[in-house]
């Protein structure tokens, strides 16, 4: 069995070339159909995401996996590109390195954001497309199943994907959720219409937030954004009143001076009756006077605070890398052992068939000499022969299996072929 991989990622392929190399679902199906015609008898899976395009190929001894140069030419042809453009930026792997790479990719270890979980769904989708287009087979099947298992183990046995690393997700999941148990009974106030407001609101919606008010200096912009995000537009001149009723504020204005000063907040504070207030000040320069964060019951987080938490989470993910790589290595060894063992199947089959043929011939001769034997006696003798053959075969099969764990057992296979006169 041979495995090959040719592909490029955000690390190796420039964005403009990556955009042209990327495959949509329809283009992937078309490419797989071409693969079937171009490389008959081989298996192929095409993984295409916004950050990577990779073609995994597998072949049997009589039809080995295509050469890297052929795969590069194939990819270039599918996307109408010049192969010489792709040659220097696409990486190539063979056999065990292919498996290790796929397992690492599925576990998010090769992603731009370390440990991000979306890649697993994309790997599954690539495998499904290959099945639908009949380019998947037993080798890639086993390899992709192994990839899913490795990814699952990395997700459950390490903390790689548990820590959030984007500012809006950290703001909501690590800080706002630390203060509030639920969001469906909370009032969310968005001040300004900055880019991060919509993203933060998306996470808040996922957490259950329903009651959202948007205020903006430009009333029209607030109305437009409110309509787009399913929120209620508020008036900027009523900001103090909105702050009295709000439980969580996301502020993203482009103002050069604080929008909520300490004096303004002090006037609001007494009317809030001690309810806690979470402020996610995502504006630069800041919209809230930082001294507001020292008031009791106020949990104020600036972009820098959240970015620091994101960095800490990233470092935490990095610390999980050795454990994650150990799992990938273990699963790779396991898969390669199975694969090598599977490659011994034809020799074992021939060996069994040869022994069975010889045994049957000897039994026939014996039964002809002893015609008085009853059917039950003949069955007993047949079973004894089978058991004898199985016991004799057991040690070499165990040796083959053990040898498979550390690589393809060519030496043992050759010895078996020569010892038992097994033809290829």
């Amino acid at each position, binding site marked *: 069995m041979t495995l090959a991989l040719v592909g490029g990622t955000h690390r190796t392929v420039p964005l403009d070339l990556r955009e042209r190399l990327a495959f949509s679902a329809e283009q992937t199906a078309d490419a797989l159909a071409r693969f079937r015609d171009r490389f008959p008898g081989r298996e192929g899976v095409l993984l295409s995401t916004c950050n990577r395009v990779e073609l995994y190929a597998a072949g049997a001894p009589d039809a080995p996996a295509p050469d890297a140069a052929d795969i590069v030419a194939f990819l270039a042809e599918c996307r109408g590109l010049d192969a010489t453009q792709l040659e220097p930026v696409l990486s190539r792997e063979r056999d065990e390195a292919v498996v290790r790479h796929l397992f690492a990719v599925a576990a998010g270890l090769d992603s731009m954001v370390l440990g991000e979980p979306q890649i697993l769904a994309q790997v599954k989708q690539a495998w499904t497309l290959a099945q639908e287009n009949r380019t998947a087979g037993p080798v890639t099947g086993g390899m992709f199943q192994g990839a899913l298992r490795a990814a699952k183990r990395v997700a459950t*046995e*390490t903390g790689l994907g*548990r820590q959030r690393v984007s500012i809006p997700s950290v703001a909501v999941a690590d800080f706002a959720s630390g203060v*509030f148990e639920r969001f469906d009974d909370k009032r969310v106030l968005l001040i300004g219409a900055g880019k991060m407001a919509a993203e933060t609101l998306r996470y808040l919606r996922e957490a259950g937030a329903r009651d959202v008010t948007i205020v903006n200096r430009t009333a029209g912009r607030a109305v437009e954004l409110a309509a787009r995000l399913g929120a209620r537009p508020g008036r900027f001149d009523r900001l103090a009143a909105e702050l009295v009723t709000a439980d969580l504020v996301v502020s993203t204005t482009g103002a050069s001076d604080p929008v909520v000063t300490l004096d303004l907040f002090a006037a609001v504070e007494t009317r809030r009756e*001690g309810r*806690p207030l979470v402020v996610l000040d995502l504006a630069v320069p800041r919209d809230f006077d930082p001294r507001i964060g020292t008031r*009791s019951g106020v949990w104020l987080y600036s972009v820098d605070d959240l970015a620091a938490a994101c960095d*800490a989470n990233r470092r935490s993910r990095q610390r999980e890398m050795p454990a994650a790589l150990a799992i990938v290595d273990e699963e790779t060894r396991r898969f390669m052992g199975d694969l090598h063992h599977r490659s011994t199947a034809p020799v074992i089959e021939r060996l069994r068939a040869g022994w069975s043929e010889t045994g049957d011939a000897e039994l026939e001769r014996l039964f002809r000499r002893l015609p008085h034997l009853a059917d039950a006696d003949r069955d007993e003798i047949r079973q004894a022969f089978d058991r004898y053959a199985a016991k004799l075969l057991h040690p070499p099969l165990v040796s083959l299996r053990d040898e498979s764990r550390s690589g393809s057992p060519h030496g043992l296979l050759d010895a078996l072929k020569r010892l038992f006169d097994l033809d290829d």
Partner: protein
Amino acid sequence: MAEFVAGISVVCFAASYAVALACEALRPALRSGVRGIAMLGFAAAGLLAHTLFLVWRAATEPSIPLSSPFDWYLLAAWLLAAGSLWLTITQPRTPVGLFVLPVVLMLVGAAQLSSRQPFPQSPATQIWGAIHGMFNLAASVAVLLGAVAGGMWLIQAGRLARKRAPVQGFRMPSLERLAHVTSRTPGIAAWTAAAGFVSGIVLNAVNRQRGLLETVPWNDPVVVRMAAVVVWLVTADALVHAARRRAEGPRAAAWLALASAAVLSASMLWGVFGATRHGMPPPASPAAASSGPATAGHEDSP
């Protein structure tokens, strides 16, 4: 089966709880699912052994079931252990056991230091004795739960104030949920403790009036400290209520919950080691008194 149940000792379930606590403490360092399963397994095994132990004692003790100071502490520990297990199952990401199991182990330790002799009771006052014990039990459990929630509130608030992301595998409940507990337990504790105190007075008065059992002098240390605990809990509840609509309210409630637990613990320690006439057997006849030495009594429920 009966032999097996009879063989269960306090050490069995205390050791199970201790191992479960160790598994919980390893949570940030060891994120394998095996750790969680081991933690749950030991906590469940401990609770099962604890339950069987109490059932066996209730079934085999000649007096009213579970009426000794020893049983009282074990019942309080059982309630907290059961609550801890339930919360661990329903909220597996929260390290509830890390906070509750030490309290459970302390209660088991207090039980070991306490008398296993049932409180003497007559049929006429049995119901008052049960009411007295149950209210005191409810008050103590409420105080301890409030303290656990208060401690967790302060840790979570400290993390949020320092603007740190949560430690992996160590996600605390939200301040809102913890404040909900710390704001309600003082009221429950105050009123159940007051009811326990009043029912104790009634019990004592009935005994005194009918000359049934040993009565407790009104200036007995147990009466004084129980009164002090009730006064403290009612005051704490009033303070929590007063701070309810203030921004400092949840923090004040958290500290008051911890203070209440400290007052209760001091009261329990006094109960374990102090002398009292509470819960002592009826006075012996002169003939009986001359035949054996008088013993100093221990009283153990708060």
